[in-house]
Each structure stands twice: as structure tokens, then as C-alpha cells.
């Protein structure tokens, strides 16, 4: 079983390296440009952009920035201002978010400790659309032309994997985050204006 998984993964990886290696054209300029744009944003604007990106998942954003929801809310509403180090940190996160198709789940994949294997599975089609649909279409064509029945099992395994991941996501959703700074500010990362 492990060998089958390994060889399938090898095929997938070769496919990735063939399709994705040529994507970095002009990336350095793009990064420099985005960094400048983000740098010019005010502290609360930058935090608001991350807040909108999180789309209600403020606890996830807090975990990524190693802060708490109340700290994020105070900074984004301008009630407090971030320390220099913290501002630099979340602006770096914002640049990464902008460079990665403005996808919050990609940001979660990179930084959220609660982003688990089932999230990786469920988000795989959106994070790697070329790879996912490319492989599935090739498998489908092989199945149709050569009637290789075993390929049907791969589809079945894929469906089962997604179903298991979905159930795991429902069962293992992270518990509520402890917020120690609802009544007082966290002087390490924010300061009164």
C-alpha cells in the first residue's frame, strides 16, 4: 500500500515540477512593488485588509500573528497602534497574502498551526488547480480510451479521501481561543495612541 502511495506521489511530483517550474517570471518585481504598496498603508489599514481577508476567521488570523482577537480588533479600529516589530511582522504577512493570489487559505496553510492535513486535502483543488484537474482529466481520458479499470479505483480512493477529510474537519475543528487581553492591552505588540 505504502509503495503504491509512494509511486503515485512520485508521478504527481514529477507532474508538478514539469508544470510549475516556469511560474516565477517577474516575481521579484511583483514582490518589490507589493512590499512598497503595503509599506505605505497605515497600520490599521493593513490590519483591516487582513481582517477582511480572514472573512470572520479572526481566531485563525490571531493564531497566525501570535496575537489575540481583541488585540487585532483594537489595532484595526485604531484604538491602539502596533509596536514597530509587530507592524513589520503583519505587513510581511500581508505581502505574502497578496503574492499568493490573495488566498487566505494559502496563508493559513503557511502559518496557522491549526491548519491540519484535512484542510490540505480539502483545499488541494483550489491551491493546485492545474495539478488537480490535469491529473484527473488524464486519468479520465485513460479510463475512457483504454478502459483501465484500476483507474476507477483511484477515483474512488480520491472520493473516499475527500469524504474522510471533510468528516475529520467537522470533528476536529479547533476549540475557542483563550483571549487574555480583552480588558487590558498587550504592551508587547500594541501601544496606546
Amino acid at each position, binding site marked *: 500500500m*505504502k*509503495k503504491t502511495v*509512494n509511486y503515485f*506521489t*512520485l508521478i504527481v*511530483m514529477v507532474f*508538478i*515540477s514539469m508544470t*510549475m*517550474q516556469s*511560474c*516565477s517570471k517577474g*516575481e*521579484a518585481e511583483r*514582490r518589490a512593488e507589493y512590499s512598497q504598496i503595503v509599506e505605505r498603508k497605515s497600520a490599521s489599514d493593513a490590519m483591516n485588509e487582513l481582517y477582511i481577508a480572514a472573512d470572520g476567521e479572526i481566531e485563525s488570523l490571531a493564531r*497566525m500573528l*501570535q496575537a489575540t482577537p481583541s488585540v487585532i480588533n483594537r489595532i484595526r479600529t485604531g484604538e491602539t497602534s502596533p509596536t514597530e*516589530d*509587530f507592524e513589520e*511582522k503583519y505587513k*510581511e*504577512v500581508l*505581502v*505574502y497574502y497578496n*503574492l499568493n493570489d490573495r488566498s487566505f487559505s494559502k496563508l493559513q*496553510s*503557511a*502559518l496557522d*498551526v491549526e491548519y*491540519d*492535513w484535512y484542510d*490540505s486535502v480539502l483545499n488541494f483543488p483550489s491551491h*493546485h488547480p492545474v*495539478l488537480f484537474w490535469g491529473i484527473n482529466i488524464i486519468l479520465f481520458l485513460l479510463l475512457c480510451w483504454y478502459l483501465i479499470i484500476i483507474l476507477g479505483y483511484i477515483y474512488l480512493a480520491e472520493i473516499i479521501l475527500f469524504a474522510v477529510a471533510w468528516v475529520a474537519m467537522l470533528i476536529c475543528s479547533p476549540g475557542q481561543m483563550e483571549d487574555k487581553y480583552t480588558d487590558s492591552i*498587550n*504592551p*508587547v*505588540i500594541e501601544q496606546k495612541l
Partner: protein
Amino acid sequence: MQKIWIVLLCLFYGLTQISCQSNEEKALRDRLSRTEITNKVPKYLSSAVINEYQQAELAINRKYIKEVNSIVSENFEEKLEEFEENELGFFVGYKHMFKVLANSDEELADYWNLKTSKYFSNQSTQEKLHEAYANYNSDVQQLRNQISKSPKCKSIPKEVKFNLPSQEISLGKMNQHSYLNIAIEFGTDLAVWLLIMLIVAIISMFFVWSGPPAWVVTVITIIASIGLSMYNDNRMIDSIREQYQENIEIDNNNILEELDKSTNIFYDYIAKH
């Protein structure tokens, strides 16, 4: 029919008893949590008592400094442990293998820089130091409130902002680590099969032996690949540890001097009034 009603009644009574009990427990917990510690402040204090309190506070000062030292000295290892827990291992290993193949060098550099600032910044250290100071402040105030109601009880030196130097940690080697993991995943199979074939060929020159069953080879492969992956992870951890420079020095003596000075001023004031 009658029996069913009796059973249902018993069940209902049992449920109400359980819920009553839990309500009582809840009420008790509430009462206990509302209990406020009120100290009767003595009107006259002998110098011996004042001295005892002063010594207790000086001990709290030393405890705080010791805690600061331990936070600063042990923090890197804690960060490393957190990094190991979240970024090395089976599933994450596969994720990084895909990542190094699917992303360009620049994208990977961004990705690892983000991880570096997440795991190896001084933010968590500063937060722990702040928490230690908050605990110190609360301990000293509680102690002082036992013998005085003076507003001077609150005159405790302000929190010292420790200027911790940022650690220049690079996770660039994670790319090499992930490539090596790919080689381990696929190379181990091949290497073990070739090795087994070689051993079988040598042994069968002297004895009649067709080789071990396939499942044995598979088990050997799995064990070998797990062992090599763990070795690779440990190498990565060691390479990060090598980058860490233990150059964080905090002027503890000055801080302790300030705290002791404040303590002595307060107890001198108490002795005079």
C-alpha cells in the same frame, strides 16, 4: 404498563436529583469565586515584622530575576521545539515536499522568511517577560497590602523593556531537507530491494534460498525510511541550533538593584509611619 410509569418516574426523579446536585455545585463554585481576600491591616507593626516582610519582598525580587534569566536562556530551545512539532513530521513533510517542487526559489524564500519571523522572533519571549513582570507586580502588591493601605504600596519600579537582539535564523536549509526527504521516500525502496537482491544472490551461491517474502522487504523499507527521515529531521534541527548565538546578555544586577532599592524605600517608609 404500571411498571413503565414507575420506571419513568424513577428516571425523572433521578434526573432532577442530578441536575439539583449540579446546580448546588455551581452555586458553591460561584460563592467560592466571589470570595474576596480581605486583610486586616495591623495598626502597629514591630520592626521585626517589618523586617520579615522586607526579606520576603527581597526574595520575590530575586525570584523574578531568576525567572527572567530562565525565560531568556530557555526560550530558544522552546521555540525550536515548537518549530519541530509544527514543521517537521510525516504530514508536514509531504506538504513541504510538494512545496519545494511546486514553488520557485523566490516563493520558497518568502515562505521560509515568514516561518522564521513566526517561530524565531522575540515576540513570544517579550510576552513571557511581560507576564513574569505582571506576576511579580501582583505578588509584591499583595504582600505590601497585608501590612499597609498606603498608596505607596503601588510604587513598584516600572517594567524594564529588555532589548533582546533579534536572532538571525535562516530556514533556507528546509529546501534541502525536503529534497532529501523526497530522495528518502523513493530512494529507500530502490536501495532496500537492490540490497536484498544482492544478499539473496550472494547467499544463493552457497545455499538454496529464494529470498524473503515481499512483506518482509516492505517492513524493512518502512523502518528504513522512518529512520532516515528522523535522522534528516534531527540534522535540520541541529543546523538551526548551530545558527543560534547565545549572545543575549541582560544587565540583571542593575535591575535587581533597582527593585531592592524600591523595596527598601517602601519598608523604611512603613517603619517611620
